[in-house]
């Protein structure tokens, strides 16, 4: 039995993602041509040999269930242990809305956490585009003797976030809550390694006092009481997808070779649900520049600075620039699209023009005909 047990938070629907999360959670958002955001967390666990993993979900999780299945694509379809999908059960009576915080989400599946056969729990957020080397985090956690290790980034998030300010010894001195923009210390990616005993103590204490903020309540109290919180800085690309604008921007970041190298290093491959696809065919008049294209597409038109998911059809004369076209979509002849996100299986009839902006891309909802 491994000393480490993984838990991925995939319940957040993140309203700022608008129509993209009409029928999915942020963690199951299609990303980078063939992945879902949660693939990064699942693959990080897999690449560190953590194959006992629970995924906490709350609603709109059909697409997540479909994507993860038995977990076999991440070697987590095991006879013993392996992947466990954790939809809500045993919610407190007063609870009607979304999980208010990490602690509440954990308490909603508290039996599962209590029964985990592991000394340490590894927590990751399902909506993070980052290839985190959990082996390195584990090594640091064990070497420093920290009770909690917080996974952080030096990159400045474009949403409200918490920050850790560390002393020279690598342990956190203080925390800054709800920061917008740059600040002291490093930004929390809200991923942690924590001993199971300590985590359960925090869950119980918070439940007893009706507290549910992992950072402001549990960790801050622990730190104030002299607890040892280590800070691990993840050096590669890291973005939590919290808004349509970040989603669009992060998607486009993947066109840069240095970002791709950080998101998809050869030594830590990102696995995803495997599909029966064909290679992509580029037609006689195809013109494709600076774009990521998944398999199974037939491209006859022009595609520049765009992300094209699998099984997409782009007809002759169509011109796409700065677009994200998701699986199974069909773009008709002579269509012109700029800064448009076409969700799965959407169809754009010939001779139409849609122009969005980088700040506010136009979203064509899933399954729609335009």
């Amino acid at each position, binding site marked *: 039995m491994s000393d480490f047990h993984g838990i991925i938070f995939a319940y957040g629907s993140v309203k700022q993602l608008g129509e993209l999360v009409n029928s999915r959670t942020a963690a199951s958002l299609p990303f*980078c*041509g*063939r992945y879902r955001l949660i693939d990064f967390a699942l693959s990080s666990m897999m690449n560190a040999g953590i194959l006992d993993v629970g995924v906490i979900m709350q609603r709109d999780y059909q697409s997540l269930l479909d994507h993860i299945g038995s977990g076999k*694509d991440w070697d987590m379809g095991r006879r013993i242990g392996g992947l466990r999908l954790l939809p809500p059960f045993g919610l407190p009576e007063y609870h009607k809305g979304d999980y208010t915080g990490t602690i509440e989400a954990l308490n909603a599946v508290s039996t599962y956490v209590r029964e985990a056969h592991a000394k340490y729990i590894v927590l990751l957020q399902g909506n993070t585009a980052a290839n985190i080397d959990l082996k390195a985090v584990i090594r640091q956690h064990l070497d420093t003797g920290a009770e909690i290790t917080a996974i952080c980034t030096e990159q400045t998030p474009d949403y409200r976030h918490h920050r850790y300010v560390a002393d020279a010894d690598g342990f956190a001195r203080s925390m800054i809550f709800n920061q917008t923009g740059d600040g002291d210390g490093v930004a929390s990616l809200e991923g942690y390694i924590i001993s199971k005993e300590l985590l359960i103590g925090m869950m119980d204490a918070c439940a007893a006092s009706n507290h549910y903020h992992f950072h402001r309540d549990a960790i801050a109290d622990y730190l104030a009481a002299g607890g040892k919180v280590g800070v691990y800085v993840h050096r590669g690309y890291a973005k939590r997808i919290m808004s349509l604008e970040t989603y669009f921007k992060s998607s486009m970041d993947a*066109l840069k*070779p240095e970002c*791709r190298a950080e*998101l*998809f290093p050869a030594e830590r*491959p*990102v*696995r*995803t649900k*495997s*599909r*029966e*696809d*064909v*290679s*992509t*065919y*580029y*037609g*006689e008049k*195809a*013109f*494709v*520049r*600076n*774009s*990521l*294209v*998944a*398999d*199974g597409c*037939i491209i006859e038109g022009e*595609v520049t600075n765009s*992300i*094209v*998911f699998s099984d997409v059809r782009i007809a002759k004369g169509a011109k796409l620039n700065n677009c994200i076209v998701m699986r199974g979509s069909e773009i008709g002849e002579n269509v012109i699209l700029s800064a448009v996100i076409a969700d799965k299986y959407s169809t754009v009839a010939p001779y139409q023009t849609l122009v969005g902006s980088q700040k506010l891309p136009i979203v064509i909802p899933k399954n729609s005909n335009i």
Partner: protein
Amino acid sequence: MKKSCIAMLLAGGQGSRLYALTQNVAKPNMPFGGKYRIIDFPLSNCANSGIDTVGVLTQYRPLQLNSYIAGGQPWDLDSNDGGVFILPPYQSAGEKGSWFSGTANAIYQNIGFIEMYDPDDVLILSGDHIYKMDYSKMLREHHERDAACTIAVLQVSLEDASRFGMMNLRQDGYVEQFEEKPKHPKSDLASMGIYIFNWKKLRKYLVEDENDPASSKDFGKNIIPKMLEAGEKLWPYRFDGYWRDVGTITSLWDANMDMLSTTLINLYDPEWPIRSRPVVRPPQYVGENAEIVHSIVTEGCVIEGHVENSVLSNSAQVGKDASVLYSVLMPGAVVEDGAVVEYAIIGENTVIKSGAHVGSAPDGSEEWGVATCGPDIEISAGAVVGAGAMIYKSEEV
């Protein structure tokens, strides 16, 4: 567990005419058509036709093929009662054991495997054909015609007939005679090397053939003629779809080029998917100055140069100002900046260093041919590999 029909897939051939490409791997494991390995075609056909038990007979360099097929999960052949089984030659108590000495002998040596499933019929397949075929239709005809053996046949031109085993038919449509590579063909129906046999009958002929010291233990040369001689009913099942044998460099190259035309073989048809073991690489990246025309490209590729009329398997790379024309790049092949690859097949993980030139366009001469570079080699910077060359060691250039 009783099965009505199981498949036996002959995947032991060496593919000696593809030498540079098959020195370390069995031909059925050869990357093909961007996304596939050759064996994906018969395995997918089995899965799509509802045949859930497949024995794969291996002999030559089977290691990579074994790990590729593994539990058969990509083809949904990982069922509880049935599945895909790798069958190497083996030794029985008190016997010395021997290699498979012919296609019929390979099946003879696995009579024990077949009898575990007690099938009514056995489908014999070859691991080096590219085609989409519904074996259940062939099986239906086999039963309707009450045949001891049904042979899939393809109409070919009379010029091509001398390369195939040809079927001459009786008035009532059953097979009268089988002629191996006839000089003066009497019919235009070529055997595709795909057979359905009534198992009880096949078993009898296999045992008889095994005891015939003069026999070369081959289905086409021995078993079929013996059945005809004995007056068995052999029915030709006419197939009119796309079918290619990829036994030579030219035919392998041709068939890859055919994948560029959906009118020849439509791989995008969701009704008949050809499945392969997924490799899961990031999507292909097409660079700022890339140009890709009339080509198929696969996940993990990074294209910065010019690609035209070509087939690129996963993770191939084409550098800046490099050209890949009328060529096949197998998985992980790298064409560095400024290199030119034309009318060529480049093996897995082979690197064409910058400024090298591999292959050339047809010049109408007899000697012209497709250039081939085997897997895991390096063609040094500025080197020239001529048309028709077959390179399998880095030192050769």
